[in-house]
């Protein structure tokens, strides 16, 4: 249901923003098998003007800062898992016409003797529209100001050679109510030789075991779910809202689980791993 709503929402947005500029990128994560050594990304321009696109690659993977915000760490000391030197994207520059699609291909030339495992890079898709129209009526000052909007989308590319496995450990779970928000933190550490791609699910239950709803944007959900990719380790901070008028006094439990499931990715690329769970008590005074 959520997936259908999401797709419907994207369709509505895509339709509503035909005058806007940018490119749609699919898939949003690329997985390349060593036996095939190639992958592709589709670019679609939903707009009415051509979009100039440039493609580049960088090495990095998501981690978290001290506040739990997810960031892309590109200043990595350990680059043994980098595929930056031997995966290339073609073409590097292209123009995507209005309502047209084009394919960017990724070709891998891994070094001989590459050990089994997973190797990473990030694909940077920079899209620049033509000059935006500059509005304003002509007047004697004749000083007009216009700003071009450019967007860069960075997605992950994971190259897998030989047997790969993954898992995750969960520790240091905490939860608190701040204002009308439920804030959680946890420590996630990857196991195995491949990134853990999955979901975090949070369910809030009261002392009777009844599930309390959480608000995400304008939607009310019984379980808050957030996609997660644990490449090495991270301590993500998640926030969801408690619906008005808030929680009555009492004790609550937050059930927290991390599962290797993703409905936005091809199931064959999501590595299986045991789910990990924990729960923590919350007291609303």
């Amino acid at each position: 249901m959520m997936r259908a709503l999401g797709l419907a929402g994207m369709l509505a947005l895509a339709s509503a923003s035909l005058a806007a500029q940018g490119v749609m990128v699919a898939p949003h994560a690329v997985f390349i098998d060593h036996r095939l050594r190639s992958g592709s990304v589709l670019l679609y321009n939903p707009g009415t003007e051509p979009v100039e696109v440039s493609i580049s690659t960088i090495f990095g993977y998501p981690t978290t800062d001290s506040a739990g915000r997810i960031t892309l760490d590109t200043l990595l000391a350990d680059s043994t898992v980098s595929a930056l030197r031997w995966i290339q994207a073609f073409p590097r520059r292209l123009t995507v016409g209005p309502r047209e699609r084009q394919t960017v291909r990724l070709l891998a030339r891994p070094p001989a003797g590459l050990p089994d495992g997973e190797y990473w890079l990030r694909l940077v898709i920079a899209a620049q529209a033509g000059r935006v129209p500059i509005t304003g009526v002509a007047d004697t000052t004749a000083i007009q100001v216009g700003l071009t909007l450019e967007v860069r989308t960075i997605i992950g590319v994971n190259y897998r050679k030989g047997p790969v496995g993954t898992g995750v450990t969960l520790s240091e779970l905490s939860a608190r109510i701040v204002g009308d928000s439920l804030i959680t933190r946890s420590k996630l550490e990857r196991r195995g030789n491949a990134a853990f791609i999955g979901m975090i699910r949070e369910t809030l239950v009261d002392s009777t075991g009844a599930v309390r709803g959480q608000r995400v944007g304008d939607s009310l959900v019984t379980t808050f779910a957030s996609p997660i990719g644990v490449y090495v380790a991270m301590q993500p901070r998640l926030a969801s809202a408690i619906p008005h008028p808030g929680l009555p006094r009492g004790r609550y439990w937050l059930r927290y689980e991390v599962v290797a499931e993703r409905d936005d990715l091809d199931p064959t690329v999501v590595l299986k791993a045991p789910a990990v769970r924990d729960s923590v008590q919350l007291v609303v005074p």
Partner: protein
Amino acid sequence: MALQLTNSSTQKQELEMRSITKLSLVVAALVLTGTAVQAQTNNASITATANVQTPINVLGAQQLNFGNVFPGVNKSIAATDLTNAGRFDVTGQASSPVTISFTLPATLGSAGNTMPIVSYTGVHAQNNAQTGGTAFSPAAGASPSLNASGALWVWVGAQVQPATNQAAGVYTGSITMTVVY
């Protein structure tokens, strides 16, 4: 899912065809909201299976519009100005955390002349009315999440500072928003 096929020119025969087709085509992905589409004719039917690949879409949706400015008169557009603030629209997987950062020009140019642009402000929200939106500094970036429908809106405002002797012209620059998915 497989459909039965009937061939009228020969004995009734059941055939099963499975065609696993990975469609990266976003349009198709949007149309084929299920995982399978059935095709059936008078004498043949096949199963077509499409893997839906959730795209990410980052759009520069609305320019940061200062309109006309006057020499010596600073002009500000607040990020909360829904009409004139620059707006980026992001769509993708529901509730996905994303990292957004900006490359912001310090000056705008026109035929060798420049005009300072300063005091950037930003708001991101899970609805296009900014209800419950979060203010942030574009220079520092932010780490919001897409909403339950997979959408996020980001607004940017700034101030231009034309000099008293600012030369006439069309002053332009680029704001780049980077989304890490």
